[in-house]
């Protein structure tokens, strides 16, 4: 399980988990789960296109993820964001379907891009993953305070001269970068599970933003590590374990909230996620 071949997988998955935890926290806080779902899915089309042209998959992912993020950001000003996100998503997925049907080796490639390929991490992919990961973390660290303010209290941010619009675009771009490195490891459909599940669970355990980011990252790491170990043993897809374990942590968080609330002042409300968690 810890052979030199598998070490690439462990390292790549750990980097992915850290980034997913950090960006996922903001995605949940900002209510942008749909964008977190749409960008990786759309990026998958870029991977298919890169495969068709014979390029390294990660560049195709990066280009399409960035285009999707900027498209959502730009069109989102003129119309309802959920509609725009949905349309950008299907445009990219439709293109992906075309690329896949044009290429000759679609079945296995499609499957591993969509659902992840735990043993498919090559050293050639490891370097871009590390670089993009470092860039994403640095970017989040630089804009951490204004982003937090713009996400939690948009009106206050506007009053203080922080442009919420610019913060949104910045965040979408970081999410795109994070996405393009996550997809080859856990797959386009489940990047999302790794971003949302741990971050949503972390919000049940702590109200402080800094601690929540740390908890989310920790849960994402555990999810990925347990997932890889089980996937290695059973040969079932990593995506399955990531999705189920992340959902398990979310339920655990919900249970914790319910128990704590019960202990403090009885069961007053069915709403499990605190609306003012920041």
């Amino acid at each position, binding site marked *: 399980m810890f052979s030199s071949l598998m070490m690439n997988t462990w390292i790549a998955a750990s980097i992915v988990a850290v980034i997913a935890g950090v960006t996922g926290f903001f995605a949940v806080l900002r209510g942008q*789960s749909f964008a977190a779902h749409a960008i990786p899915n759309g990026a998958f089309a870029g991977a298919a296109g890169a495969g068709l042209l014979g390029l390294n998959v990660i560049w195709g992912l990066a280009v399409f993820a960035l285009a999707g993020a900027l498209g959502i950001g730009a069109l989102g000003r003129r119309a309802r964001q959920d509609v725009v996100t949905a349309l950008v998503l299907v445009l990219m997925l439709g293109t992906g379907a075309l690329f896949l049907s044009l290429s000759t080796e679609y*079945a296995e490639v499609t499957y591993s891009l969509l*659902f992840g390929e735990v043993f498919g991490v090559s050293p050639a992919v490891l370097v871009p993953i590390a670089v993009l990961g470092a860039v994403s973390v640095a970017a989040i660290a630089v804009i951490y305070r204004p982003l937090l303010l713009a996400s939690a209290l948009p009106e206050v941010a506007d009053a203080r001269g922080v442009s919420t619009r610019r913060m949104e675009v910045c965040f979408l771009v970081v999410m795109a970068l994070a996405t393009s490195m996550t997809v080859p490891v856990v797959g386009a*459909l489940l990047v999302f*599970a790794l971003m949302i599940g741990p971050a949503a669970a972390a919000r049940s355990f702590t109200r402080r933003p800094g601690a929540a980011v740390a908890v989310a990252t920790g849960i994402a790491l555990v999810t990925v590590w347990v997932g890889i170990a089980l996937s290695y043993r059973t040969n079932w897809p990593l995506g399955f374990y990531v999705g189920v374990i992340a959902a398990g942590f979310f339920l655990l968080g919900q249970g914790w909230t319910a128990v704590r609330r019960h202990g403090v002042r009885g069961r007053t409300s069915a709403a499990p996620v605190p609306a003012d968690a920041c």
Partner: protein
Amino acid sequence: MHYIFEPGLFSSGPVRTAVLVGTVVAVTSGVIGVLTVIRGQSFAGHSLADVATTGGAGAFLIGVDQFWGFLLAGVVGAAIMELIGVQRRRGRDVATGVVLGAALGAAALFLYLGTQTSSTTGASFTILFGSMFVISPDTVPALIASGIVALAVVAVLSRVLLLASLSPDLAAARGVPVRAVGMAYLMALAVAVSLSAVAIGAVLSTALLIGPAATALRVTKRPGLAMAASALTGTAATWLGILLAYDSFYWSSSGRGWPVSFFIVALVLIAYLLSYARRPGRGRRDGRSTRARKVLVEA
């Protein structure tokens, strides 16, 4: 004429099935899509489609027709979403997302097990991206019937649904069971999504659901008119998409066509972008409140 309609188009059985099913799908999705856009539930619609993928993969695993898998998973998914409360604006995205993530994980497993046990490797492509030309004629009556049932539910409830969508408080004050109505709507949505999952694939069904509806709502603010326009746009995109996909077999000598789903998605998006050209620069809050006021006045 011969260059537009390639030989054998009208005599081909799969094409006739595709046109018939495509029309039913486009009308159902178009009408229900308008409500989805008005209710701001695009994410729920897309999630139901992805949850339906799990059902499609499961059906493939046990050897049942995909439509039943899509439908069962869609209805179960809708019920779970209702339980965790899609009507709450805050938190519903996260809850939807977690359910979606777990369902996709299960889909990954089913597809993996399916490809292990049978030798057909193209199944995941068909489930995810659809293939209109391989719809089995046996399921066509079931497809049409479920489309009609979903449309009937929406037609009976349309007035109440619009009121509950635009102003839940007012609807509740008038004695409308908002929750039950929302549930009925989600069930209709699940049927519509399953239908378009059969036609253009689970992950692309959002295109037929949201695209024509968003286009129609940019052109007119009257819900009834928007439903008609949306159904028409969807149907036109579907027919043209089928025609182009059929013709694309003759574009190159390789004998491989481009996927019909791609053409339908592209045409739907072109229609949406054209609606921008026709009516530039309407603010979103402005548009929404106008629509709300109009419907409330009508109600």
